């Protein structure tokens, strides 16, 4: 598009009787595609019979366009609208929110018990996380697992969607009941990271179920029976939980390759 071909060259290009070597022909043609000015020059050099023919073709095309169907409206492709996952996740999140709501109510009704919101916080995100990466819940799991988008990044996006609902609910619950905000949210994040990290080895769903059951049996049940908040959830442990979360997240990053295969979908 730097130098325009001379008017003489364009005239020879337009004239079917004039001879023009192939290389020049090509370069003129490429130039014409991108240069309106030279196309205008070309029109002036086209023989009359060709111009008549072109006019006839243009009129015919216009007629056909006018007579044909109206063009379909351009569809805007939006991954969000088509994101099956968000819709399928809703029932699970509703359940989680309902359970946490009950915990808040119970806590108000039975103040002698340790904070149920704090006790349940670590396992609150697990049903959603298990759902997010399970072949049982994604009918197209095998198709999805073979795509470039599948992997840790996709799992983290889905986990973020779960946390976006669970974390505010936990925060609200803990302020309502006067429980420590840090000791509610940090164990929640640590268990989320643990489920993902363990998931690299045994599958995310299995890891989430295992962690949930272990926490319920080892911590929640004794706490409810003895009516005392376990030591691991005492406010002093916040730093330890934060460090644990970071360590687990780092480990998950190291195992990123495992999330590209089907085994992580167990």
């Amino acid at each position, binding site marked *: 598009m730097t130098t325009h071909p001379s008017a003489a060259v364009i005239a020879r290009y337009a004239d079917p009787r004039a001879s023009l070597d192939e290389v020049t022909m090509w370069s003129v043609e490429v130039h014409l595609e991108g240069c309106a000015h030279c196309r205008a020059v070309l029109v002036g050099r086209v023989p009359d019979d060709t111009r008549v023919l072109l006019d006839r073709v243009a009129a015919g095309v216009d007629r056909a366009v006018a007579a044909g169907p109206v063009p379909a409206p351009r569809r805007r492709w939006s991954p969000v609208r088509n994101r099956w996952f968000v819709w399928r996740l809703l029932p699970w999140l509703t359940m989680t929110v309902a359970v946490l709501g009950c915990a808040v109510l119970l806590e108000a009704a039975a103040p002698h018990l340790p904070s149920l919101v704090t006790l349940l916080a670590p396992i609150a995100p697990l049903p959603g996380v298990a759902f997010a990466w399970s072949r049982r819940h994604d*009918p197209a799991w095998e198709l999805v697992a073979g795509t470039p988008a599948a992997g840790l990044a996709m799992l983290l996006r889905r986990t973020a969607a779960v946390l976006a609902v669970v974390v505010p609910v936990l925060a609200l619950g803990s302020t309502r009941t006067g429980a420590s905000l840090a000791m509610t949210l940090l164990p929640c994040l640590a268990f989320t990271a643990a489920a993902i990290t363990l998931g690299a080895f045994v599958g995310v769903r299995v890891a989430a179920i295992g962690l949930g059951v272990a926490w319920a049996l080892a911590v929640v049940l004794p706490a409810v029976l003895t009516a005392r908040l376990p030591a691991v959830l005492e406010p002093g442990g916040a730093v330890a939980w934060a460090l644990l979360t970071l360590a687990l997240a780092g480990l998950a990053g190291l195992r990123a390759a495992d999330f590209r295969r089907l085994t992580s979908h167990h």
Partner: protein
Amino acid sequence: MMRTVSAAETAATTHPWAVHAEGLRVRAGRHVAVDGLDLALGTGVHGLLGPNGAGKTTLMRAVATVVKPAGGRLTLLGEQVGDRADLRRVRRGLGYLPQQFGFYPRFTVREFVEYMAWLKEMPKATIPGAVQRAVDRVGLTAKADARMKTLSGGMLRRAGIAQAIVNDPAVLLLDEPTVGLDPEQRLEFRELLRDVGVDSCVLVSTHLVEDVVAACTDVVLMNDGRLVYQGVPDDLAAQGGAGDAGDSPAERGYSALLRRHRAEAGR
């Protein structure tokens, strides 16, 4: 249809084979379903034959990169897809139709193929056009906006093929794609295979020897997780004799090769 040719497409291929397996071992659960397979596939349509349990589906899954090989080497489009491989680039060049594929019942055909195109990380602007083209190629134009749950078995399979070809894959893997297609659709499908196979590597697993003879440039026969035979369809037909089981020369060739392989393995 006009489309822009990307630099990646015109770049010289530096790999001799689109799919190259050397001593490949792949587990299906505890069982080693692919056991020391050597296979090299280039451009063309390769028909993968073998009895049930030969390891065809497991091989397909390994080549589709959804399961990790337990041993050996697997190279796809010049990149080794081992333990810690970043599979993203290879996967952009793959198309895969599993034997049983799930779908989202409330999606329309178009939404389903669009979603898959998006997961394959195609440029957003090219998705609507590529989806329309894929849907047209499998003959589902009239059903493009029908919900998946309203489709017949044959139509579902064609929707599955559409998502597999939407990204113009360099390696196309189809596991039993003709199941549920009626005879006329099978003929159209063979046409599509030949068309795609002109410039891509297509691996089609099937139990129908006639499909292979009609549509494939190359026959791959597997048994017990190993490669038994690789050759052109005409040569497969020449392997059989009058005494072998089958209704056509190719089927007789297929039975003869399997019988010989089993006899050797039995010794």
